[in-house]
């Protein structure tokens, strides 16, 4: 009995010390980690908002794709929204910010968090990749598969069609959300 208590006690002591030590490390790194996330979001918002100012974030519940939005304000008048979208990529979820006008037209897109394959799906992080979606969503529909793209854009999707379809579906959902829920 004594042996069990002594052995168990020593193990428990090691665990306790470990937990305390980690608590300290956590306290030190947590603000830095939160900072990193904020900076990434701010820089992505900057890329997407153009000359407009972004207002307070409004969270959206119960939507699998649209997670939140920021109303845009340009020189005093409302100028559409930036939507936070979640698309399903090749290797997990992809986080996007998209600037969308009231009529659903997509003005600018930035791919943030993703685990796509470098050289293939990850190319979507570049702004040239997103050109295929800019201007769609209102008069022209958001392209949902490779056949609907021009030759130049179709090439950039080669070998990474899952990434493309995930992005397209998310953007279409975002564009529809603005038209149906937020539009004038």
């Amino acid at each position: 009995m004594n042996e069990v208590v002594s052995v168990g006690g020593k193990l428990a002591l090691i665990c306790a010390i470990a937990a305390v030590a980690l608590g300290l490390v956590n306290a030190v790194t947590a603000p830095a980690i939160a900072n990193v996330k904020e900076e990434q979001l701010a820089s992505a918002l900057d890329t997407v908002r153009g000359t407009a100012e972004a207002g307070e974030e409004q969270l959206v519940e119960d939507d699998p794709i649209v997670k939140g939005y920021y109303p845009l304000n340009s020189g005093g008048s409302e100028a559409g929204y930036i939507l936070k979208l979640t698309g399903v990529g090749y290797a997990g979820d992809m986080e996007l910010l998209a600037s969308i006008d009231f009529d659903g037209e997509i003005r600018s897109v930035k791919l943030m968090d993703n685990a796509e394959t470098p050289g293939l799906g990850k190319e979507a992080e570049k702004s040239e990749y997103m050109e295929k979606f800019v201007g769609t969503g209102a008069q022209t529909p958001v392209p949902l598969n490779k056949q609907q793209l021009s030759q130049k854009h179709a090439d950039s999707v080669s070998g990474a069609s899952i990434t493309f379809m995930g992005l397209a579906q998310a953007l279409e959902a975002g564009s529809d959300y603005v038209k149906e829920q937020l539009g004038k």
Partner: protein
Amino acid sequence: MSYVGIIITFVFIENFILTKFLGLCPFIGVSKNTESAVGMGFAVTFVMSLASLTTWAIQKLILVPLGLEFLQTITFILVIATLVQLVEMIIQKISAPLYKALGIYLPLITTNCAVLGIALIAVRSNYNAFESFVAGFSAGLGFLLAILLMSTIREKLENEWVPKPFRGVPIAFITGGLMALAFMAFDKALLRNLIG
């Protein structure tokens, strides 16, 4: 994701061994002989299913509410170590020959990246309890499938001529590589077409 989607994903499309390389040590180490490969596969599947369910509970009910997410790695691995001890005792009681056949590889399930791997992936993918369980179970099945296929190939290879430098481990890796190549046929497009 639908349950069928989860199963197809972890057994084929994201087979732990052939696409994520989780569980390689036993894959190369235990696949010389089909019986122990299958025994190992079942033991791992059992542990993985229970582990992902238990770690889901710990994450959801203890770590998150108390803001202790930084203790995730420690608690998860300790849970897995405990489960493996339990499984060891159970197998010893139920089937002494299997216990002997698995030998050292049974306690080594604790350090099998696949078990901790599925626990972490299930949490990162925000699965609920049942989805976590199904994910663990399917990942285990995927492991079983890969190790079973590998062992049948290696048994045949024993009777074939292999250049000396490649005998044993290197040819096993190359075989694995070719299997992974074949498994690339299962990709997300297939899943989309099957389930929509």
